[in-house]
């Protein structure tokens, strides 16, 4: 008589799924590549700000209106302190790009000046600045330290919870932006939102948005944008649709770059985060010299020796 095996309870199945989703091992390639990209991106973010350090960080007027800041007595940093923070931060970011060891130590060391500079910034980009800071904090849990333990060795594997959270953070941005457009905003379904954005001489009226479209054209584009964002939020998680979702991200941000006067840093950050979703096998196929595992030892050769 065959023994009847009790089906696992819903709780047990949920726990197994949770553990598999977050804590299974995964090659560290995506984390290592993203670390290099993100350090370079952050350098590109902070370098232009250095020239305007007084205006952005030490300006005595029209500063932060946050209550915490007022409670702290609205501290005004001296310029030398800001330059010092910049020096530490930029050096750390450069080191993160070039060094192979102590990456985590450098990461922790640059977090303090980065947080202070973000807090002192009187013109921090509301969207991508906050997202970049969030990703820097989440990156602490990603296994980006090193690709291999020794040259020629296999690519390391590690629990993927850090990477998973960073990916979830990326897709949650698209999910929430759709919700905010539909619930908090009220002009996306009728196309007015895009029309206003494109015709605004300060935000739009740029390259492709100078072309005048009929009202239905804006409506189609508005609904299309919402559909694309929703597709990215979920489609990037399924293997069959991942490639399409990545293409949609690239296409959408390229179109935004050609129609709106938003900083290219925003688009490059969103497109750059796709590096987190590229499978290790694809990295190994595209750049075999850097990311492929060494070939397995030939058993016949071992026997003959």
């Amino acid at each position, binding site marked *: 008589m065959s023994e009847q095996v009790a089906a696992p309870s819903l709780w047990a199945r949920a726990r197994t799924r949770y553990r598999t989703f977050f804590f299974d091992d995964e090659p560290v390639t995506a984390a290592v590549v993203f670390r290099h990209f993100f350090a370079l991106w952050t350098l590109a973010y902070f370098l232009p700000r250095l020239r305007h350090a007084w205006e952005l960080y030490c300006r*005595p007027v029209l500063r932060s209106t946050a209550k915490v800041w007022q409670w702290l007595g609205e501290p005004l940093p001296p310029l030398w302190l800001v330059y010092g923070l910049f020096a530490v931060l930029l050096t750390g970011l450069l080191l993160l790009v070039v060094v192979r060891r102590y990456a985590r130590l450098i990461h922790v060391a640059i977090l303090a000046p980065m947080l202070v500079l973000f807090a002192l910034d009187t013109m921090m980009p*509301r969207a991508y600045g906050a997202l970049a800071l969030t990703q820097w904090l989440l990156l602490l849990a990603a296994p980006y330290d090193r690709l291999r333990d020794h040259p020629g060795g296999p690519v390391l594997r590690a629990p993927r919870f850090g990477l998973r959270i960073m990916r979830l953070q990326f897709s949650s941005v698209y999910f929430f932006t759709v919700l905010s457009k539909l619930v908090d905003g009220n002009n996306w379904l009728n196309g007015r939102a895009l029309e206003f954005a494109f015709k605004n001489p300060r935000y739009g009226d740029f390259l492709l948005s100078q072309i005048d479209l009929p009202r239905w054209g804006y409506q189609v584009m508005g609904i299309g944008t919402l559909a694309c964002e929703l597709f990215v939020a979920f489609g990037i998680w399924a293997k069959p649709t991942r490639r399409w979702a990545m293409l949609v991200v690239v296409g959408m941000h390229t179109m935004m770059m050609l129609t709106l006067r938003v900083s290219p840093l925003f688009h490059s950050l969103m497109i750059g985060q796709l590096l987190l979703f590229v499978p290790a096998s694809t990295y190994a196929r595209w750049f075999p010299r850097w990311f492929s595992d060494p070939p397995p030892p030939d058993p016949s050769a071992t026997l003959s020796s």
Partner: protein
Amino acid sequence: MGSAPAPLTRLWQHRAGRVLAHLFVLGWILVTLGLLVRGVLPDRVPGHGSFPWGMFKDPNHKTKRLVVTGILDDGREVEIDPGRYFHYARGFTDLRFYDHHVALRKDRGWAKREVRRFALLLAEAAKEQDGIDAVALRLEWERVHLLSHKKQRKRVHDVIVVDKRRYRRIRNLAERQERRRTFEHKSPIPLRTPALSKPGPGPLAPQRAPGAR
């Protein structure tokens, strides 16, 4: 697997590390769910807030520009471009820090103080760099409707940017001039006419009745 353990794998081998990792994941999930619930709550319920990452949710149907007019001590008005003194602009736009600052949109005590300090800095920069010696600045928002192109100006504040003694002197002078102008305009008898400067009976001289000696 055959590969040596990465640092996070080493952390995973300890119970404290595993607890920390679970807390990290659960923390992120809770924060995200909290943001979702906060946005879904009806407007009147305490704790309601807008969804995060809503930067493009509602583009404005008007474009606005801060217009700063400097008033010189002789009463002339000069337009001052604040973008000449503050250079950092967002992305490919010409948006400066003052274009978004909440103090320039509110009319409360602290906002007035902030705007006054901003105007003082602006006047100082205009004097140093362009030699515009303004005694007061008028800050206004110029809004243009994107479809009808209708223009509208709304005053933010008028700020006196010189010290009080100098401003009082200038104001008194201006008031005297204004009073004189008004008097000249309204009075049936001109205050200063060529007849007054000439010798002989002017229009203010007592009139004699015709035939009287």
